[in-house]
């Protein structure tokens, strides 16, 4: 049995929160990250703590963490800048903790390279679920297969066909672009801007304001109840998240 060491970096100036987050992360990370993944044997979780943004950036470079938990209210630096700086050279998922509830701020964080955010006060259960999702996502290989299936759908990316239970569905080029952006970034919150970039590149235009309408049309072709979607979820004020397993909450 081989031991895996999983380093998790917690950047927060409050010792109480560091302790709480450290404990939660430890218990979340030792659980098998995914059912599909073969057991890797005993996982040893090592939590590294930083109290300032500068220290956090140094540790992110030195320790090679598998996951970074970043509190926005740091004494020395803007959380957004810390996030951006780490993301410039580090691929580890970043979960942001924030006491502010503004959606524009969440979108800005995701655009700056954060993978998820959670607002204070949060429940430990929810936090652990987010940590597991990020660890699982980081470990699973990117979905580059030509044929991807989700729910009762099969998507052939090469031939640009989508079938529900074997019946083909007609999509417009825009809806195709959207679907492709979603299925290549499963379980990940994509901001409106990120989706726009993925679908239209840098082409500026009216499309951004109609993005929600295009998603609405795509949803009506895929979801059986567009107001209770299984696959394409709305992240209020931020963007959309695609759940290939068809999460229903």
């Amino acid at each position, binding site marked *: 049995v081989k031991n895996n060491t999983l380093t998790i970096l917690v950047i927060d100036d409050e010792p109480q929160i560091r302790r709480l987050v450290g404990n939660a992360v430890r218990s979340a990370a030792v659980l098998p990250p995914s059912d599909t993944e073969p057991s890797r044997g005993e996982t040893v979780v090592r939590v590294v703590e930083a109290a300032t943004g500068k220290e956090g950036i140094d540790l992110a470079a030195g320790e090679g963490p598998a996951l970074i938990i970043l509190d926005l209210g740091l004494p020395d630096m803007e959380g957004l800048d810390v996030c951006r700086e780490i993301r410039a050279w580090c691929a580890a998922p970043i979960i942001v903790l924030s006491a502010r509830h503004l959606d524009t701020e969440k979108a800005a964080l995701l655009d700056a390279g954060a993978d998820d955010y959670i607002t204070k006060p949060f429940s430990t259960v929810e936090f652990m679920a987010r940590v597991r999702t990020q660890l699982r996502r980081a470990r699973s290989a990117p979905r580059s297969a030509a044929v991807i299936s989700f729910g009762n759908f099969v998507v052939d990316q090469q031939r640009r066909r989508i079938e529900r239970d074997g019946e083909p569905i007609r999509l417009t080029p825009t809806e195709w672009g959207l679907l492709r952006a979603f299925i290549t970034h499963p379980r990940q919150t994509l901001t409106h801007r990120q989706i726009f970039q993925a679908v239209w590149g840098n082409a500026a235009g009216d499309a951004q304001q109609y993005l929600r309408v*295009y998603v609405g049309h795509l949803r009506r072709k895929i979801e059986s109840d567009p107001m209770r979607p299984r696959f394409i979820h*709305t992240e209020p004020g931020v963007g959309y998240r695609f759940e290939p397993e068809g999460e229903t909450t």
Partner: protein
Amino acid sequence: MVRAASTTNLRRAGRNAIVTRWVTWLVVLAAATLLMFLVRGMLDKAHVTLVFLLVVLGASAAGGRALGLTVAALAFLCFDFFFLLPYYTLTISNPLDWLVLFAFLITSAVAAQLLHRANATAEAATQRAQEVDRLAALGAETLNAADADDALRAIADVIRTSVGVDECDIYHRLPDGRAAPIARASAGEGTIALELSDIRGGRGSREDRIAQPGSLVDWIVERGTSAVELEDGTVRVARDLPVSTDASRHEPQTDIGTALAMVTRHDNTSASARVRDALGLSEELPTRHLHPAICALALPLQVRDHTVGVLRIAKRGGLELAPEQVRLLGALSYYAALGVERARLVAAAERAEAERRLEKLRSALLTAVSHDLRTPLTTIKGIASEIVRGGEPQRAVVIETEADRLDALVGDLLDLSRIQAGAVLPALSLNTIDDLIGAALRRAAGALGDRRVDIDAPAGELLAGHFDFTQTLRILVNLLDNASKYSPSGSPVEVHVRKQEDRLRIDVMDRGPGVPVSERERIFEPFYRPPDVPPDIRGTGLGLSIARGLAEAQGGSLQFSPRAGGGSVFTLELRGMDASAPDSPKVQGVEPI
């Protein structure tokens, strides 16, 4: 004397009246001469003298000194020509007749002169009386008008009509030192505005240039000097204006006096010559048609040596004031200054009153908040110390729920204070109802539990609206939360979505107890809770007031109505929008099939 009327039309009308008067009295003289000529044999010299004297007096009274003297001279000639021997010559045979003739002439001249003086005095007295009347009326209006702004508008109007200009604007000084228009009276449409290219003092003071056009009033408020605007788009400020000797003799040597002197018409100098003089520009601009006329005058309004505003009057085709109009303008501008000052004081008082009300609300909120915050805190503290002393650890669940309640309350309080401070800036954008309802159902999932929510929306149509997504989501979650809270268990909450012309209407309906008529507006007040609410239903009491505040901040509305068959309907109205997206721009790497 003929008083100069202030407009061209009036002047023309006046001229016509004068001509008529002259013709009338000349005809009267001719008629009197003819009548007396017909009965010449029966008349004595004294009769003729008296009749002519009557005509001269009449003409003097009606037409002034010039007409009186002219008629007297003509009567003199007629007397000599027709009534003194030898007839039809100007020679006189009887030397005593000379005495009669010259006595007549002197009497006529003296009478004409006396009448003229009496008339002039009477007219001046009438004018004064009119001025006093105007000032009295203005004073009464200023003090009477309920609204300080109305008073200023009245003052502007009185100034415009009594000084005889096309436009009168009053500006007040803002706390930051800039000037803003507060009242305006205008004769026609549009503004007599200059493309202000150059604001400068008189001769050579180029350092006073103001780069930005239109900032003249700001400049005047700042410096407290007056200025005139010329037709060519330049401005002269009074501080550096060299005043002609003629004007400075009559007017006080103040800035305002200097500016007024420039627009004052004196009998002995033509306006253009005097302006040339005043500006010291005669050598540069020798002819009148090259010289730009003054078209507007701006005076600082001062109360106790403190500039509170600006008065600007303007007139198409050149501003020119008679000395008595200048005097009137001086008095009226003082009323304007008092009016501006009054408006400022009223605004300050209103602000103080608003602050007092806000303070009252704030203290009421504080009382409620401290109660609502302390209750869960007390529970948390109590249970925590129980556990520390070896109590049942399972009781910590209560700590968790109470902490959630506190979190909800703090969130609501933050939102409410943001709404009440007007700090909620809705980010309006195109959003779909699918997104909105989907997200609301997800977010309210905890509060809804296993309660069914029936959604009734037009099938097959993607509804969209122009609203702030997260704020509207908050409203809808609050409504769902409320509906679920007051519904009997097992009865579903219904959501109806409709498009009505350019509005989106979302009804959230429950089968709860409803709201009594007397409480229907109170439910939207902060910290309102229904009178006999069961103790297990405890909200923050802020949900509906936040919901309504958010709805109104983005131009929507939130209303309550009773539901047929029992229960409540909360109706949220938003701006609808056409959901048909235009053809999408080319998607990367995807060719149309």
